[in-house]
């Protein structure tokens, strides 16, 4: 890896980090979120709590900003002069963007967060010492820190509810960082199954919990290397490329009925989540207020 190569294409370099294999062969997990389909119902967030053993911190801790939702549904309000009940809201589900050149990975002093060969940004809880540098450097602020020892906090998982915990996911103790994993426990299972049958994971064989719960099918997830996958087709249709920091939609060269973009692309973190712009009109203003 020469210096000039490193400078000329940082994202390509990060593709192979830290192992020296062929980039993303046979897997690169990616996502597409259609904001036009998102109704802001929060089902994805609830599903994530159930699947990934997220602690429910309660009202008091929530008000201190200690909430642990790996996927959060953000609200952005229309600014057209209307007051609250009439004011239109737009929703954006935000989770770890599994960046290819992840800002969090380079700064961790102990190497607790790394890139996996299948393109995930992994977090090793046992290695984490809680310096929180990863979160400080995360542009999306999607990393969540265990401010308290939630497994031993009474109101987080009452005794009778511990049976409900997902046995495939470890329960995190205090002082470690955690975040969306793209449901890595599910990926591991299907990858193992596929390997024992001598094939790669087929489209539709695995879903993330949020995708599974979404009533409008706004979230699609899969292996972007596989040309048959829905994610691959969506990214291709939107002309969004993983290793580019400006997409066709924003170059102005193409007639723009394209909707695909990635958040804060100019920071060159090369996220693995593509969002599809909303095409619906803003909710119409109530005409009686405006009639002369």
């Amino acid at each position: 890896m020469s210096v000039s190569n490193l400078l000329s294409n940082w994202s390509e370099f990060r593709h192979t980090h830290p192992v020296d294999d062929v980039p993303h062969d046979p897997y690169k997990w990616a996502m597409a979120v259609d904001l036009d389909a998102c109704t802001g119902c929060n089902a994805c967030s609830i599903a994530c709590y159930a699947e990934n053993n997220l602690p429910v911190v309660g009202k008091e801790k929530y008000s201190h900003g200690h909430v642990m939702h790996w996927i959060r549904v953000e609200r952005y309000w229309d600014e057209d002069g209307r007051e609250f009940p009439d004011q239109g809201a737009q929703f954006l589900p935000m989770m770890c963007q599994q960046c290819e050149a992840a800002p969090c990975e380079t700064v961790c002093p102990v190497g607790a967060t790394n890139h996996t060969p299948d393109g995930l940004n992994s977090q090793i809880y046992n290695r984490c010492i809680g310096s929180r540098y990863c979160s400080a450097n995360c542009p999306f602020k999607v990393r969540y820190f265990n401010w308290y020892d939630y497994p031993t906090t009474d109101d987080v998982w009452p005794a009778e509810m511990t049976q409900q915990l997902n046995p495939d996911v470890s329960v995190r103790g205090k002082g470690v960082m955690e975040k969306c994993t793209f449901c890595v426990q599910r990926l591991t299972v299907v990858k193992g199954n596929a390997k024992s049958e001598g094939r790669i994971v087929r489209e539709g064989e695995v879903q993330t919990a949020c995708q599974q719960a979404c009533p409008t099918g706004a979230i699609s997830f899969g292996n972007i290397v596989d040309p048959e996958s829905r994610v691959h087709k969506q990214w291709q249709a939107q002309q969004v490329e993983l290793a580019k920091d400006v997409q066709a939609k924003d170059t102005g060269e193409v007639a723009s009925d394209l909707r695909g973009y990635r958040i804060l692309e100019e920071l060159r973190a090369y996220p693995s989540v593509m969002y599809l712009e909303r095409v619906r009109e803003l909710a119409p203003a109530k005409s009686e207020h405006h009639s002369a």
Partner: protein
Amino acid sequence: MKDINEDIAWAKINKDVLKSLENPRPLYWIILAVAIAMVAVGVGCEAYQYRVGMGVSNLNNPHMWGLYIATFIFWIGMSHSGTLLSAILHLMHADWRKPIYRFAEAMTTFSLMTAGLFVMVHLGRLWQFYYALPYPNERGIWPNFQSPLLWDAMAIFTYLSSSILFLYVGMIPDLAICRDNMKDGWRKKLYTALALGWEGTDRQWRNFRVTYLTIACFLIPLAVSVHSIVASDFAMSQQPGWHVTSFPPYFVAGALYSGCAAIITLFIILRYTFKFEEYMTLSILKKTVRLTFAISMVWTYLNLIEFASVWYGHDQASKDVLIQKATGVFAPFWWMMIFCGSIVPLILAFKRFQTNIPVLLAVSLLLNLGMWLERWMIVAPTFSHGYYPWTWDNSQWPSFVQWGIVFGSFGWFTLLFMLFCKIFPSVSMYEVKEMVYHRTLAKKNLGTAKGGH
């Protein structure tokens, strides 16, 4: 005004300095008691935080870093002027540093120790802090050498061990004087062991000079690199308000600034409590004050440069952070920083205040308040106005645990420093003698007392 009176007898120097080891003014004990009480508060808060979790500090997402990191930078910065006085001015043959460099060097060591504690206090899993150290282990796992935090850990340990060495080596001839003048007891044993059999032969002096000079030369680039690396924690990150090219020199200037202000504070306290009026003279104080004034103006200049480059740099996110600092929730603190750091030092430009002890004590404390605020204003506002809009409307105020630990750290530093001054000679006896000798020589040769070295 003379830096030092040239007819002080050498035996009197020994006597006066040795007296400081046994017979300080009552104020000394008051300071010590207050410092211990402050440490107790800090330790209590840390024990609580360790037990319950980092949540009690009221840090949150997105406010991941708070007063701990800010105060860490503050203490690292404090350590720099010790090296400035003892190493840089040593190379420049500035004689006036001689009576005050010992305590400045001790200040370096102890503020580094205090800074190190903040790295620990900040960690979510303090009990695993050694994962960040590059130690050989059977799992073959190393820390991440890309991370500026790791550079930090290495730079601080290197700087700390070097400055302890420098402090110790420079003290050997004085320790021998202590040894020779002490009655039997634990002190005698301590000094005998630490003096390493110093007898003051020509050969010993020659080796001593070479060693001292070598460490001094080694220490200067270290001091500059340490704070540059601390600056890299921010400059190497991607966040608006932190990703600033000029941060390393800016941090070094800030470090020298707060360090010099601290030297003035400690100068005044030591001079009184240990009755060092004859050695820590007003003339020396005046030189320190002028140095501080110069550095304060450098700091102000670098601040203006940073604001200007952000303002005209067309990076909207960074610009927003700057606007937020000046007008948002942090505005009172930010303007206070500007006031304490850039306006207050203007007093030091006036001759009649350069030797006015009450004014200087107040000003030096204000300068350090400003410098502490500066560090806080570097760390915190970026979290409340980062790139991502979701972070924008969050407000967060440090809990009593954070304030308590910051408060305790000042007690911890004072405790270490005051104990040092009581156990070891805080004025360098042999160098003061040198200084007196240089002055008498100058007087003989020139017929006037203007000389110096």
